[in-house]
């Protein structure tokens, strides 16, 4: 008897129809998949992506070289050298973040007393060569300059929860 039913099932392509019905159901259902890169997921203002160094509105770099971020960094990804600038202030002469080491925990941003080092919403970056992801002070400052409006808006949005 079972053999007989199987025989007829194979004729009538019932499994195929069953499968097609699942496909058909999702064909009209609401779409979940994001079509990256044409589409992008929404981001929190707390998103921790690529780092940037910020400046004050008058153009002065914020970083004072206190080295708290270097001390707190669990991946030892930050390297800072400090010297006295001609005007007597404490400034960094070297501020490097090795993004290959970085685990994007955001401790550097948390520890910064002057909101100089921040993690931006940027996650689309890459390196083609060894060392491309070793970000220097100039690169970080350029990042900050480019995205300052977004960075400032994000900090402002987060401020009331702090």
């Amino acid at each position: 008897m079972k053999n007989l039913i199987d025989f007829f099932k194979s004729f009538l392509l019932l499994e195929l129809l069953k499968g097609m019905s699942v496909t058909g159901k999702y064909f009209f259902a609401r779409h979940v998949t994001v079509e990256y890169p044409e589409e992008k997921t929404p981001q929190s203002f707390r998103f921790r992506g690529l780092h940037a160094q910020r400046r004050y509105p008058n153009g002065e770099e914020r970083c004072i070289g206190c080295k708290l971020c270097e001390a707190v960094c669990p991946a030892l990804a930050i390297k800072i050298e400090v010297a006295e600038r001609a005007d007597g202030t404490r400034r960094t002469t070297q501020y490097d973040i090795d993004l290959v080491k970085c685990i994007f925990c955001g401790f550097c941003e948390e520890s910064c007393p002057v909101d100089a080092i921040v993690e931006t919403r940027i996650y689309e970056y890459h390196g083609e060569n060894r060392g491309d992801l070793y970000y220097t002070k100039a690169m970080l400052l350029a990042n900050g300059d480019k995205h300052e409006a977004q960075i400032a808006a994000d900090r402002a949005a987060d401020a009331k929860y702090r």
Partner: protein
Amino acid sequence: MINIEIDGKQIQTENGSTVIEAAHQAGISIPHFCYHKKLSIAANCRMCLVQVEKAPKPLPACATPVTEGMKVFTHSEQAVKAQKGVMEFLLVNHPLDCPICDQGGECMLQDMSVGYGGGQSRYHEEKRVVLAKDIGPLVSAEEMSRCINCTRCVRFGVEIAGQMELGQAFRGEHAEIVSFVSGTVDSELSGNMIDLCPVGALTSKPFRYKARSWELSRRRSVSAHDSLGSGLAVQTKNNRVLRVLPIENEDINECWLSDKDRFAYEGLNTADRLTKPMIKQDGKWQEVEWQVALEYAANGLRHIANGAGAEQIGALATANSTLEELYLLQKLMRGIGSDNVDFRLRQSDFSGDVKQQGAPWLGMSVADISRADRLLVVGSFLRKDHPLLAARIRRAARKGAQINIIHSADDDLLMHVAHKAIVAPDALVEALTQVSKALASEKQGQSASGEAGAIARSLAGGERVAVLLGNFAQQHPQAAQLQALAQQIAALSNGKFGFLGEAANSVGGYLAQAVPGTKGMNAAAMLATPRKAYVLLNVEPELDCADPQQAVAAMQAADLVIALSAYKHHATEYADVLLPIAPYTETSGTFVSTEGRVQSFKGAVKPLGETRPAWKVLRVLGNLLKVDGFGQDTSEAVRDEVLQGVDVSAKLNNAIGGVEAKAAPASSGLQRVADVPIYATDAVVRRSAPLQATADAAIPQVRMHGEELKKLGVQSGEVVKVGQGQGSVQLFAVADDKLPRGVVRVAAGHAATVALGAMFGTITVERA
């Protein structure tokens, strides 16, 4: 003894101690800023308020003496409330910018505010601003707004350094620490104010913004710059020495460090560091491999030993070379058949060598100096030659000890000097003879007159007498006689006598046998009758030797000069091989301090470039020259070979016999008195930029009695020409009426005076 109770803990403490001392003794911490165990009590920070039973208000623990049955509560509600209140007031005017402060991470105020402060500031008004001050090249007073007016620096100046260079001016909110004597802080101990300052007001200028405290690794080391053997915490980062701090040791340097020890590290990585072996070929210097340089040196020595004879080779080393280096150097020399090896480069009288029974040393422990009640210091520029020993003597003087001085210059020692005899160098022996005679007659109940009599009476009245011979006495042409007289005086007054060692290893050099035997030549003889070859260990002949003229002439006449040096110095003019060796921070080694304390240390950082520790270089030279006994693997093995497990104290002996004190023939003309300026004593110090910017490192002046200057027709402040032998230099003349007549004081060991001759002897001065 008194019984008290702190936080429920029963404590027995000495009568007269304070609550904070009792608490620290019992391991209970009480927050404090102005209190410091070595300074007087000011009780002006109020941080140490504690509750005392039956007292209506909280009391400052640092200024409250203990009484029998006292009950103290350091963490009661009242005490904590008081401490929190004080902390809030302290922070009212203190900038809250720890991230840019150099003290951040090692700041007492930062730590205390975590423990006793609030999380938020309630103060929103404007803060007080105190203007930055420039108080010299060592201590930075850039951030005086951070000052909490604890006055530790002021009390240190008055009580330890002996001069009040910083003071507190104005009142109330306007109170601030100012320098009001000369504008700069010139004390040779000024660096200690940096350690004392509990906040970031006084910080190290050379270290400013160089690193944070948590980045530095600490290495234990021993000072190479004076004979005290101070413990150093060498702090390094990325294989570079960035800071030096004291290691506390009550028996040696207590918690202090002289500026020389603290800031000398700035001279370690200068541009003229030698980092590759070099040999001179056809008059040109070439960098070569170690193998080539060592073989060149070994072949040169072998050639001269086989040709002209081994006694034509001489070895000179400085007294701040390590024990291991000195030992291997003498072993190498003796291995190739030469007995000419010496480390006492500034000494001029070696007649005591055969009469001396052991290694000359302090004759007592350093701590004994603090306990002495009568001191006689002979021939010492005490403050500049031995800054921390001088501080000990100063404290002894404050406690009532009588300090007597016999010397050829009358520098301000910043302490009460009971009696002093300031005589010309050739009258020094006579002056000591007088004191000795006066002491002898004092014993028979007859009082002698004059300064000698006064000094004798002072010494005779003491229970713990110490007679100390300084650098000047050791370098004196009649050093052996001075030693014999000091021995006599000490014996007559039932005291001890000894030498204030000149350099870090002045005792170690003797233990390493880096002195000529009966056949060999001493440092002076080696230079007076030039050798064909010299081996120099750490030596800059024109600056380190007693007679620079003679030293340079001898070097230039030599066929072969092998210089083991950390720096490319003037040796490039006469040397044939330069072997880069590591300074004391880059090598392991041992120093034997002037009190006979053997202290070994390890390298704090890796040797720079191709530099190698000198003991290794000497070992390889020994192997290349096929001398036996150069198979040591470690510097510890070398040290153990030197000391052979024998107690060092058995080898220390100041006793000298068979020396007769004879007055020197009266010299005709002017006599030179030469000190080695405090920041010109050794190669590293001479290259330390911040030290060279201090007042103590100024270009030497020609100092003479005003009447003597008048005789020459020279005004104070005019340039004069000073001559000795072939050479002469032009320097400013300054009238100094404290100097004896017939004496010209011109510093030695300084680049400005290398053209002159011996440190003692006649000198001419004329109008330029």
